[in-house]
């Protein structure tokens, strides 16, 4: 907790160059034993690069890394592990088809003349899990457990290698609040055992709850190292963004148009529902309005969106478009009617990693025009460049493979893909998840400008504050049911939470 904690790892003037980019510019960083050290920064600030240099994923191009005062040069993640630096990533990097026990000990199995001792291995695994207060059947395959459990298994594995330093790279992104608390309990326990922990997260609340110290990076440079309790939130955000928070805090609420009720609805759902997905609901989407969908994970938000976009087929009710009953049996129908759907899981359902930014932007437009219609290269580049500028996408040029972009910028490219179609109704499912504050603000601004152009937006987000700030109307979902609709002044975090929390209705 204090400056007297011994320094465990010290990185001095660490530099990492990528073709055309200085990803890390002489960054200093230190982690202390028995401390949780948060690494903060916007997308592209260099957090991931720094972690990958520390764990031997990338070789460094300059500077020194000391572990316990001795210089180290990790060559591979395995080498870093041997040195005492273990990492748990956002995506669980274990083998789902093997048992929990084997996942903990893979590569370090107890053997007797080369023969793996399964009984001993299972017993050791049980002990390792119970040290983290987890009592689960270690002989079941990992894939049968929730992501949260899998992540804790990953931690058990990381810690069991006799780690000195544990790096947690956005471990909380896919956990609910109860699971986050469980994870924090484990982190506190490890901290008390003298482990150093580097914690990367986008959630400010979590940073302030668990971390002792914060290091802020921006554009590959060190902004500074601070004690968490001495750094107010606003200051932290200012340091991360390098600009004043005010620019995105104001100017949003003003656009909440009150006369949206007068505009005709684009889409009306009447008693629309699907068994095991969402109970029948009524919903209207009007021109020039942002309809927020609020609710907990699994409350039926995505399911609602999928019904409206024709991905899943409803078994009850009907959809009316422009006042006429419509049959939507595929996303192609929806797209033909001027709808767009930016899905939640951008990695699995959105971007095509090896294609360039230009190609990713052009994809839906090309599809809508038919694959035989030629689209000149010049026009494609023009279009891509337009969106790179308009959405503030940080990329070298339009012909960079999208996989080289940070998460927030990939999300913006995905948005550009739909915007290129000029949809009149755009569904955004968690467009701001896992991206930094600046990119969030850009996306929120974009949503509002779409409305001003008379388009309709359905905005799904787990962050209430964001829903409140952007929406003209909010539909609240609970347990796969639409329970309430809030409009105008009713829209605030308190009302939404009260609605979600209420147990009757």
């Amino acid at each position, binding site marked *: 907790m204090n400056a007297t904690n011994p320094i465990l790892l010290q990185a001095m003037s660490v530099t990492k160059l990528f073709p055309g980019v200085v990803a890390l510019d002489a960054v200093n960083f230190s982690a202390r034993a028995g401390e949780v050290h948060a690494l903060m920064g916007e997308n592209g600030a260099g957090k991931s690069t720094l972690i990958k240099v520390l764990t031997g994923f990338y070789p460094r191009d300059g500077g020194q890394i000391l572990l316990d005062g001795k210089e180290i040069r990790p060559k591979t993640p395995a080498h870093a592990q041997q040195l005492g630096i273990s990492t748990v990533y956002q995506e669980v990097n274990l*083998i789902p088809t093997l048992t929990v026990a*084997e996942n903990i000990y*893979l590569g370090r199995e107890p053997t007797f003349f080369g023969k793996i001792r399964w009984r001993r291995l299972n017993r050791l695994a049980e002990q390792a899990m119970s040290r983290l207060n987890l009592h689960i*059947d270690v002989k079941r395959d990992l894939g049968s457990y929730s992501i*949260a459990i899998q992540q804790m298994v990953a931690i058990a594995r990381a810690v069991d290698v006799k780690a000195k330093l544990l790096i947690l790279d956005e471990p909380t992104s896919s956990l609910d609040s109860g699971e986050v608390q469980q994870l924090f309990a484990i982190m506190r326990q490890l901290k008390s055992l003298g482990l150093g922990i580097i914690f990367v997260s986008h959630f400010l609340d979590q940073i302030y709850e668990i971390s002792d110290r914060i290091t802020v990076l921006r554009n590959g440079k060190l902004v500074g190292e601070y004690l968490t309790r001495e750094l107010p939130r606003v200051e932290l955000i200012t340091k991360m963004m390098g600009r004043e928070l005010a620019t995105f805090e104001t100017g949003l609420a003003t656009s909440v148009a009150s006369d949206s009720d007068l505009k005709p609805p684009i889409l009306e759902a009447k008693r629309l529902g699907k068994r095991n997905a969402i109970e029948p609901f009524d919903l209207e989407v009007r021109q020039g309005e942002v309809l927020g969908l609020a609710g*907990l994970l699994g409350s039926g938000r995505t399911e609602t969106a999928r019904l409206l976009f024709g991905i899943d087929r409803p078994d009850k009710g009907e959809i009316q478009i422009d006042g006429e009953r419509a049959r939507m049996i595929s996303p192609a129908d929806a797209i033909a009617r001027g709808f767009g759907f930016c899905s939640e899981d951008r990695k699995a359902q959105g971007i095509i990693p090896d294609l360039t930014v230009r190609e990713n932007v052009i994809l839906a437009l090309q599809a809508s025009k038919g694959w035989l219609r030629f689209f000149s290269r010049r026009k494609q580049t023009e279009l891509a460049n337009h969106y790179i500028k308009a959405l503030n996408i940080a990329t070298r040029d339009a012909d960079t493979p999208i996989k080289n972009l940070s998460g927030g910028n990939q999300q913006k490219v995905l948005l550009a893909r739909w915007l290129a179609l000029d949809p009149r109704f755009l569904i955004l499912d968690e467009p701001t998840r896992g991206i930094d504050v600046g990119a969030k603000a850009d996306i929120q601004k974009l949503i509002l400008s779409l409305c001003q152009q008379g388009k309709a937006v359905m905005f799904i987000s787990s962050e209430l504050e964001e829903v409140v700030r952007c929406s003209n109307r909010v539909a609240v979902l609970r347990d796969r049911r639409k329970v309430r609709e809030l409009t105008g002044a009713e829209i605030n975090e308190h009302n939404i939470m009260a609605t979600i929390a209420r147990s009757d209705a």
Partner: protein
Amino acid sequence: MTEQANQLVYAPPRHPWRFRLRAQHIPLLATFVVCLMLYTAACIYLRDRGFFSLSVFISFFSDNAFLGLTAIGMTFVILSGGIDLSVGSMIGFTSILIARLMNPEPFTLFHHTITLPVFHPLVAIGVALIAGSFLGLIQGVLIQFFELAPFLVTLAGMFFIHGLAQVISLSSIGIEHPLLDKLSDFAIPIGSASVRFPEIVFAVVALSAIYISRYTKFGRTIYAIGGNEQSAILMGLPVARTKVLIYALSGFCSALGGVIYALAKWSGQSEGGLGLELDTIAAVVIGGTLLTGGLGSILGTILGVLIVSIIQAAIIFQGTLSSSWARIMIGALLFVFIVLQKILSSRARS
């Protein structure tokens, strides 16, 4: 959702009994049931022709020993998420190589006429096994270090090795040696039947393979690579080395299959084993190994080979059906098994 998660975290395992059916065991169980049903049906239907006897049962393994050996190597490859199409031509290549080494002919290389001495069969077999492993190793190196698709590399390997075999000799070459006579006469009597050399080789290799897959770090790394290669790398497992070795192992197994093939046919044939790679893949898949890797077992593959053998033998015993019916049945079984795998893997994901 939360409730369930909490339960998973806090509640002790609810099922006290030890041997619980786990999802990953279902394909193996299905294979076993199919195998048992086929065998029972064939025994009942062909009871007048003496299908139900120990010697017929043992013949399942002797007739298809080279298929079994090759399939064991293939299982390792498929478990790792790869494929090896070169195994069929490897059988022809090793058999012809052995035959040629035992019956050398003068050949010209760069205007020099070279005459090799007559090799002892054991030396010839040793050379063939080393050559097979080496060719597998080369393919593994290409796949791993040039990040090439296993399908393409081993497809090229299939043509390359087949070509090598044809260069050695287009026509078949007979082999003769007192040692081979002794090997052929060698038999361990079991009741009314007896176990011969091919079955013994198959049994030894099968048991070693089961041991390797279950009880060695090498074996577990193969499963890990097939489950998720990226994760296996991040977990610090020796992925590169293992992957190269897997293809060398498959090369060795198919070369051994070629040895058994040569011994069984008393000759080497460059066209022998052609197309066998597909039968091998079929046996592995029927044996419950997931084509995408990570799930499966050697035991399953042995049952898969057994199923193929039972179908073939039953049709021969039946006498009036053409051998095409064996293909039709194997094809139908394959359909059933890939559908089953799809259902199981999609359920495991949800």
